[in-house]
């Protein structure tokens, strides 16, 4: 038997205990304080938008298109619909490509050069300023052909891809090996196991990634300046310029008219509410299928 020398039992002294209680309280205060600091900007912005914008909200805002300069009233109905069209194009493009890219990096391309290149490209793409994205798409799709809704949607879609790819990759890698082995052990082909087991297990995180990307591009203005351009009239055509909430807010906010300033505040309020509602809606729909006790 090896003899080990045990340290003498330390006596719990009163001052020691006092110190622990103080540190415990300090840590709690620090954590609560940080929470408040994190939430404060959001609450402040939302509160200020409510204060400035809510009074200009009326039925006309949601049903009418902008009035010409000099006439009062009018609304942003065309911009709300236009933003919807642009985001639909962007999501149809960004979500499948983004998820497929993430699956490739995490599951099929492990330790392959192409996968490392895809990951690196995604990271660089993530860092490209949105105005540069706008100019790039302008050169590719707009110059000589005219501003279109489609080009705006493509610009936003490309901006969604890197976020979705990287979150999908990370969420897939978090699925434990023993879950994958369970599927392979049942004689399930690898591709089927990836789609039906690994991706499904990771789906809450993947959906969060898609929502983050969606919320980010929903407020983008710069890439739309050169692509969707904006439109004062009704249009849902993909081959014509289309209105978008951020563009309309931008134009109205820079204008010299007080009424337009108020409409811009109202537009900003509507934009942020629409983003929050759509994110919450997707979470609700995605969460309905979750079973009791599922982790």
């Amino acid at each position, binding site marked *: 038997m090896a003899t080990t020398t045990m340290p003498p039992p330390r006596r719990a002294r009163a001052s020691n205990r006092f110190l622990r209680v103080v540190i415990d309280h300090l840590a709690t205060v620090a954590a609560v304080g940080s929470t408040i600091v994190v939430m404060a900007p959001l609450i402040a912005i939302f509160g200020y938008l409510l204060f400035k914008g809510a009074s200009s909200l009326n039925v006309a805002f949601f049903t009418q298109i902008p009035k010409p300069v000099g006439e009062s009233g009018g609304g942003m109905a065309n911009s709300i619909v236009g933003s919807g069209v642009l985001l639909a194009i962007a999501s149809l493009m960004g979500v499948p490509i983004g998820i497929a890219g993430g699956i490739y990096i995490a599951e099929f391309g492990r330790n392959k050069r192409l996968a490392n290149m895809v990951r690196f490209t995604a990271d660089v793409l993530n860092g490209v300023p949105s105005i540069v994205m706008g100019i790039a798409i302008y050169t590719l799709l707009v110059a000589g052909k005219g501003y279109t809704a489609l080009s705006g949607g493509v610009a936003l879609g490309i901006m969604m891809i890197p976020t979705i790819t990287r979150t999908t990759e990370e969420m897939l890698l978090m699925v434990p090996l023993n879950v994958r082995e369970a599927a*392979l*052990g049942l004689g399930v082909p690898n591709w089927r196991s990836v789609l039906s087991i690994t991706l499904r297990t990771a789906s809450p995180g993947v959906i969060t990634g898609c929502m983050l990307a969606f919320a980010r591009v929903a407020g983008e203005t710069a890439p739309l300046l050169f692509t969707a351009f904006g439109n004062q009239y009704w249009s849902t055509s993909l081959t014509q310029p289309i209105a978008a909430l951020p563009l309309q807010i931008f134009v109205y906010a820079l204008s010299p008219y007080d009424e337009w300033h108020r409409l811009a505040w109202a537009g900003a309020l509507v934009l942020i509410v629409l983003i929050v509602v759509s994110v919450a809606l997707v979470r609700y729909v995605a969460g309905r299928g979750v*079973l009791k006790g599922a982790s």
Partner: protein
Amino acid sequence: MGVAIEVSDLNAWYGTNHTLQNISLKIPANHATALIGPSGCGKSTFVRCLNRMHETNPIARVTGTVRVGPTDIYAQSSPVEIRRRIGMVFQRPNPFPTMSIYDNVASGLRLNGYRNRKVLDEVVERSLQQAALWDEVKEDLKKKSGASLSGGQQQRLCIARALAVDPEVMLMDEPASALDPVSTAKIEDLIFQLKSQYTIVIVTHNMQQAARVAENTGFFLNGKLVEFDATHKIFTNPTDKRTEDYITGRFG
């Protein structure tokens, strides 16, 4: 019905680590065979070679032949095909966390394209009955996630999931080592009943468990099969000195 397994000159590597060296043995059909030995001796690698799970690790390599029934699984079969015939239960219960109890059991059939609902219902009930879990879960088959069950129930769920695809062989890699004694006893009862219909290979650290459930026992040490014989012979009158040292607790 179960089939016999015949292994000859099996060698396996992880990278440069020669984890299994010249293993040859015959595992009889419709019996339980236990594999014992200290950690790292290669017994887990051995069972993973029997259904070609070993090669899912990119640095793994294997040589030699393994015959499951009439099939040489490395020469005449694909990994996917052979894993459908050989069920596997892992050390840690691993139900699919996003699936209900029902979907977990049905997953093997569904993921291979089976859709007939009536047949699936029957298979799920039969498999859960066989795994002695039916009475505990029949109320919330489709309501609860497989991950919401207790550890012992999860492991029986995994056994039911493996049974649902109607395998010929069941490989169990320390199926009870993460479970409490009551759950362990249930799993052992289960093995006892299943071995009339399936060939069972069970890796275990628990020598009493090997003695209770298995007709034959193999002792692995440092990547080699030291001794393979009837269980009572291994535990009462082993031929090799190293086996005797191990089962009497002198090392390992």
